[in-house]
């Protein structure tokens, strides 16, 4: 396999970083990067924050906003082939069939198709219902975000909460509806989530927890308790679904994303690898349970790993045996940074080690998360990076220490 043909499906952060990493390992590889969006690879986190504000306020033309999102790349023109604006239809004998009929012969296929927003199954209010994943989604939503408008956000996860914060800054009236008792509860745990709820309420958000949406009327959202919310704009922020339909015939385990081993190699499909939001892998820092991880840093980490695996298989060698990336995520709301390291969602207990949760948004807070006696995560709330860095180092030491049962 002197010049392996590598087809990367998905032209976002994970796909681009995989192409770069494969090129670095195998300069002779013939790489095809395919994406269903018409845009060149771009960065998504600002879509719910700075980009949305710029688009809504009309402060900057669309092209200028997009320009800032474009991912810089080490790839020179001509080093890889790109097919943008066309989705993959399926896998045929290990090759990729595109929706325009083309068949891409492939020695390796890397799935980097990511996720899409979940939608509510009910009909109604179609002219004002939005989701946020792509630049085009952000543009459509931003156009509806006029000062004084009534916005209903369904789902108080990170995306829903960030949109709510941006909308408040833009002068909208915002109601957030969330079935769980607190916003971002699974990721942050009860105490920090409660503090975040207080922060949103302090900034004028009407936060209705323990409530769900029953139906949509023409200009209203009806909740399960019968309450009717006037809505000029509705955002469905209900989490995501992995884009794996095109892999149905691949033989891979697609029960939640693509199940991969610690080399990003799909279980059950010889020449398929998965990276980014799609990849469901175990992280030995925590346990042996495979999970999908929708953090910004995962595409870069899994891309390098997948490239090393491909290089090792082409040359007959083996990649380094351990893959144990430190998880990290952040969210910016009301000018306050939530910065997490590790896996706070796995914790049973939370300990405030710096500051005071009643001072959220006012003074720095650091919270450590433990499962049993073991530290598994740390979160800073408006904490200076240098302060969190010290707690990250402490967490790293704890996670890497041999476990004594």
């Amino acid at each position, binding site marked *: 396999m002197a010049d392996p043909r590598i087809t990367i499906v998905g032209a976002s952060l994970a796909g681009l970083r995989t192409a770069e990493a494969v090129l670095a390992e195998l300069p002779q590889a013939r790489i095809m990067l395919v994406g269903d969006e018409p845009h060149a690879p771009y*960065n998504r986190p600002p879509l719910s924050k700075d980009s949305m504000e710029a688009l809504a306020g009309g402060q900057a033309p669309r092209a200028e906003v997009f320009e800032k999102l474009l991912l810089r790349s*080490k790839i020179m023109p001509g080093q890889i082939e790109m097919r943008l604006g066309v989705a993959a239809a399926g896998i045929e004998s290990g090759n990729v069939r595109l929706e325009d009929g083309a068949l891409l012969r492939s020695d390796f296929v890397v799935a980097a198709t990511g996720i899409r927003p979940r939608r509510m199954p009910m009909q109604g209010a179609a002219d004002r219902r939005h989701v946020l994943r792509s630049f085009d989604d952000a543009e459509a939503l931003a156009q509806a975000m006029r000062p004084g408008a009534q916005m209903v956000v369904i789902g108080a996860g990170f995306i829903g909460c960030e949109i709510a914060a941006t909308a408040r800054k833009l002068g909208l009236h915002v109601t957030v509806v969330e079935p769980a008792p607190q916003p971002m509860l699974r990721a942050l745990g009860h105490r920090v989530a409660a503090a975040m709820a207080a922060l949103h309420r302090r900034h004028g958000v009407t936060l209705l927890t323990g409530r769900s949406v029953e139906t949509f009327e023409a200009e209203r959202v009806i909740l399960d308790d019968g309450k009717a919310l006037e809505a000029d704009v509705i955002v469905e922020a209900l989490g995501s679904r992995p884009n794996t339909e095109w892999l149905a015939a691949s033989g891979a385990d697609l029960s939640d994303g693509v199940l991969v081993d610690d080399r990003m190699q799909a279980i059950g499909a010889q020449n398929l690898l998965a990276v980014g939001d799609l990849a469901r892998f175990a992280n030995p820092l925590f346990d042996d349970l495979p999970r999908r991880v929708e953090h*910004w840093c995962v595409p870069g980490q899994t891309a390098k790993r997948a490239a090393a695996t491909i290089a090792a298989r082409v040359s007959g060698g083996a990649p380094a045996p351990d893959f144990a990336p430190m998880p*990290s995520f952040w969210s910016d709301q009301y000018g306050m940074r939530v910065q997490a390291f590790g896996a706070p969602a796995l914790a049973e207990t939370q300990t405030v080690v710096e500051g005071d949760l009643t001072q959220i948004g006012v003074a720095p807070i650091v919270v450590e998360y433990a499962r049993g006696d073991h530290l598994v995560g740390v979160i800073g709330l408006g904490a*200076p*990076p*240098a*302060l969190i*860095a010290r707690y990250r180092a402490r967490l790293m030491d704890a996670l890497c220490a041999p476990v004594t049962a």
Partner: protein
Amino acid sequence: MKVHVDMSICLLHGQCVIAAPEVFSFDDAGGLVWVTEIDDSQVADAEAASDACPEQAIILG
């Protein structure tokens, strides 16, 4: 290789300090400081830091 950080877009995520601690660090006031001229042994870490920057604020050249 020269290292430059565009402080007009840096949001102090600190990912570079994690990826390349010999090149990037926080000073006592919590600000980001970095080595502006690195040798070959530090290039791989600096590139990893540049890739890890969510704001793409690190420019190597």
